[in-house]
């Protein structure tokens, strides 16, 4: 399976990556190579192998429902580019 230039551009857009037009063929080739590798794995008989969601064969640990965090807004907002009235400010979002 090989990716087209348009598909590469769409993936880049979804990931919000700015890529140079001249690099598109290179990415297409590279990503296509990875897909081929996956296709090769598809050839293995996995009929009796249950799908795996995580490489570690462990259970999720659960925490008790307790409030353990204090308000540290001052510290967090000290590193934010712009804040006002306790809010983080970001470029206008238009729906």
């Amino acid at each position, binding site marked *: 399976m090989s990716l087209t230039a348009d598909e590469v551009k769409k993936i880049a857009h*979804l990931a919000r990556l700015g890529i140079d037009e001249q690099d598109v063929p290179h990415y297409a080739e590279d990503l296509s190579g990875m897909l081929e590798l996956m296709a090769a794995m598809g050839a293995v008989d996995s009929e009796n192998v249950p799908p795996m969601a995580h490489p570690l064969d462990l259970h999720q*640990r659960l925490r008790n429902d307790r409030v353990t965090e204090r308000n540290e807004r001052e510290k967090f907002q000290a590193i934010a580019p712009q804040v006002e009235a*306790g809010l983080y400010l970001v470029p206008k979002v238009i729906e």
Partner: protein
Amino acid sequence: MEWETVIGLEIHTQLATKSKIFSGAATAYGAEPNTQACAVDLGLPGVLPVLNQEAVNMAVKFGLAIEAEIAPYSVFARKNYFYPDLPKGYQISQFELPIVGNGHLDIEVDGVTKRIGITRAHLEEDAGKSLHEDFHGLTGIDLNRAGTPLLEIVSEPDMRSAKEAVAYMRKLHELVRYLGICDGNMQEGSFRCDANVSVRPKGQKEFGTRAELKNINSFKFVEKAINYEVERQIDLIEAGGTVVQETRLYDAAKDLTRSMRSKEEANDYRYFPDPDLLPVYISEAFKAEVLTTMPELPDAKKQRFKDQFGLDDESTTILTSSRETADYFEALLAASGCEARLCANWVTGELSAALNKAGQEIADSPVSYDRLAGLLKRIADNTISGKIAKQVFEAMWQSEAEADEIIEKQGLKQITDTGAIEAIIDKIIADNPGQVEQYRSGKDKVFGFFVGQVMKAMQGKANPEEVNRMLKDKLHG
């Protein structure tokens, strides 16, 4: 052409945990902006999510209540999209292996019971809030809500009218509140609804193209938004157009829906299992433990009220409409020792009306169940009539006095002294010879006039049955 409406609902319920689904920050509503948003909620580098046990308990509880399959093994996935109130650039949700699958809820519309399938319910984190008021051309972000646990409940496209959709939504709202897993506060966004709506020619098997109506936050608006959307789609198709798959926003002020954005591209969420979280295993023992914490559910309670107390459908519907109402009724019944019918009438009648008028919930009723019990006892033992009782109830609503004090103070005791009643009856008969003549010549209606006169003279304090009996004797004699 005759059209059929097809509706499926996605309902987001905020789970009533104290802390967030993946962090130890508080979930309390209404805090100062960003004071309940910790490093995990902000998506700072290097943090790891740890799952809240109580969120899992609540999801399982819900699953058991809708007779669903509880997944022995479920997986969290990342749903990738960019929006400033989602700091990580992805929402932790569940995709292929949700915690709850394949349940159902029975609704009743116009006396007909219908089963609505619930495809799945999955755990996920809520996003923050964007404030679009003008901050010098910028948008303000409050991340207090980010990471609040949500259970997204997805129905099958089984509903065929806005009315059915509202009935389903109400039933679900009642259920999550009974279970104590969600406070159901729609104004605060604890219970939010998206509706997938499409139309198709009646008899056609395939579904039409659907539009998704977003965030319609009241029962009334759900009905209106769906009705508007159905009409829009039918008009569009009949005019030769086609419905496009898109997200639409309901504008309550103008009562219409409008296109938000085309879903085609936005929908590419590229889900994949979240490597930060291990799969969740739910054992039979765990389910059994959750089962021991299950309260009696609304349908079972309603049936029991009918069987045990011989109450009708109408009053049992009101009495079981919330757990608090049902609890109040049962406490009243126990405390008063009165007949269930009398207790039910007061809870669904006088008390409900007063609460509605004051805009109060039954849990905060100014007249508690034990005070009301004190009043009902006096009706049952004939100390006061039902009519006087309403007067006493009003006084109880305004003060903290017990029924007995009010009855005593205002001299409202029913007059049982037959001599006193007799004297008044004799006087009224003597004063109204014309009416007596009419009655005796067969005009039964005049009887009401005499009852009215006697009750008036006795300021409503006579036992009406006693008055009726004595009046009849006198008039016939």
